[in-house]
């Protein structure tokens, strides 16, 4: 009952904050850019009639390939890091309470640090450090995605039902055997499907990241935007959309096979 009251008070407060925030907006005519309407129409036109000339299509294919390559390489690295650090951060291999607290604390902290910084910021840092090389793009994806995946893997391992694990313990399994025969088989399907979802996100990130000059779909979108060629922008966008859809279909197939 008390809990219910507290929740209602919080909800009321948040609504008040929202209403109050509306007053800080200056509602004048120049809130919207006056030339915006014609630009908007221009963009819409590009959506209906994307540039499908051979030159642009060729460029789109090459850029898509590059974007995909960065995403795959970054994701592969992220997966390895997440698997190792995620298992350590879950604490299932630790013995005793003090050891558990220390190891879980350290590795959860490490994962937090990796994902607290956005991939775009990592990209800037790496471009500053190693220049405009593909490594910059790959590492910029691998680090934050490793952090995100690792955190979720650790949570999934912690959520594995206790009964089968206890039964394996009663058979005399060591902690490593528990990991192999108990924890991982239970979590594998969810881990895989989450990784596939994150791979989809990595493709989008990889495209955006090329804004810093690393090449790929995002870079082409940026160039076309600067030239106000919205029909080209849409061509590249459709390629990006296509890649995401293909990955989604692939992950559905994989999941179906694993769950069956």
């Amino acid at each position, binding site marked *: 009952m008390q809990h219910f009251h507290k929740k209602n008070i919080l909800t009321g407060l948040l609504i008040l904050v929202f209403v109050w925030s509306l007053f800080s907006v200056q509602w004048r005519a120049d809130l919207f850019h006056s030339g915006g309407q014609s630009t908007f129409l221009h963009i819409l036109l590009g959506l209906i009639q994307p540039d499908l000339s051979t030159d642009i299509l060729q460029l789109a294919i090459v850029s898509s390939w590059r974007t995909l390559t960065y995403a795959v390489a970054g994701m592969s690295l992220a997966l390895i890091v997440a698997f190792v650090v995620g298992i350590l951060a879950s604490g299932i291999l630790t013995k005793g309470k003090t050891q558990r607290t220390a190891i879980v604390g350290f590795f959860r902290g490490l994962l937090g640090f990796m994902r607290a910084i956005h991939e775009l910021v990592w990209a800037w840092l790496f471009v500053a450090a190693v220049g405009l090389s593909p490594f910059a793009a790959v590492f910029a994806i691998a680090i934050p995605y490793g952090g995100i995946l690792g955190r979720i893997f650790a949570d999934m391992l912690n959520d594995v039902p206790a009964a089968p694990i206890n039964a394996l313990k009663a*058979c005399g399994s060591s902690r490593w055997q528990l990991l192999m025969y108990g924890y991982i088989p239970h979590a594998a399907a969810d881990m895989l499907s989450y990784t596939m979802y994150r791979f989809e996100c990595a493709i989008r990130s990889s495209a955006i990241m090329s804004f810093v000059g690393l090449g790929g779909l995002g870079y082409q979108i940026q160039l076309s935007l600067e030239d106000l060629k919205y029909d080209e922008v849409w061509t590249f966008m459709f390629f990006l959309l296509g890649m995401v859809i293909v990955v989604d279909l692939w992950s559905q197939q994989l999941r179906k096979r694993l769950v069956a």
Partner: protein
Amino acid sequence: MSDKNSFTLKDVSKTFEETQALSSVSLSIEQGEIIALIGPSGAGKTTLLNILSNIIQPDEGKVRIYGKAAAQYSSGRELARKVGLMRQQFDLVGPLPVIHNVLAGKLGEWGLLKSMISFLFPRDKDEAADALERVGLLDKMYDKTSNLSGGEQQRVALARLFLQKPQAILADEPVASLDPARAEDIMSMLVQMVQQEKQTLVASLHSIDLARKYCNRLIALKDGSIYFDLPTAEVTDQQLTGLYQLMESKDGATVAAFS
């Protein structure tokens, strides 16, 4: 305390929060005995089994497992050679094929490398096949375990115990979630195995009929104490009625009872 005993308990008490789960329980169990643990829900059957299997430690009293104080079993491996467990059907790793759940009985013997190799290319396959044949599931060897029915899963758990080969088996409601025919089926397989391997069995059971049919000693628990501990033949219907009685009014008439 004699060392031929599988288990010896002396004045064992256990309290959870404010409820007394067991109060001053003493008993000894010899190798080869087949014992049913009976009594109403909440009588302390599971607590007693958990103490026998060293999963929880008593607040007071002494527990000896195969002549050794329970606290002195430092590794799960050493204990797994003495004591095997069987519970309800949620004890198996569902996503794994049946053969790996059976071979899990060997994990206490295997080193890490062998268990890793076996994960890809199952080792000791003949033994697993033999155990599965005994429980009538040879054709399901490579099926995903979670696709099996409840009764079949309990048979897989039995096959796992065949490979583990402990000296004593503790079974906590092994047939609770099964229909009577399947419960009978699992129970007879379990007892047959225990007799063949000359193991000790302590099983908590809800069904008095199963307990009387398969076990040669009945230990009845009520409110955390031993109500009676007798050879099956000596247990009277009156004692059983008393065991499951909910409460009595002052003049002695039964308010609610079931047997």
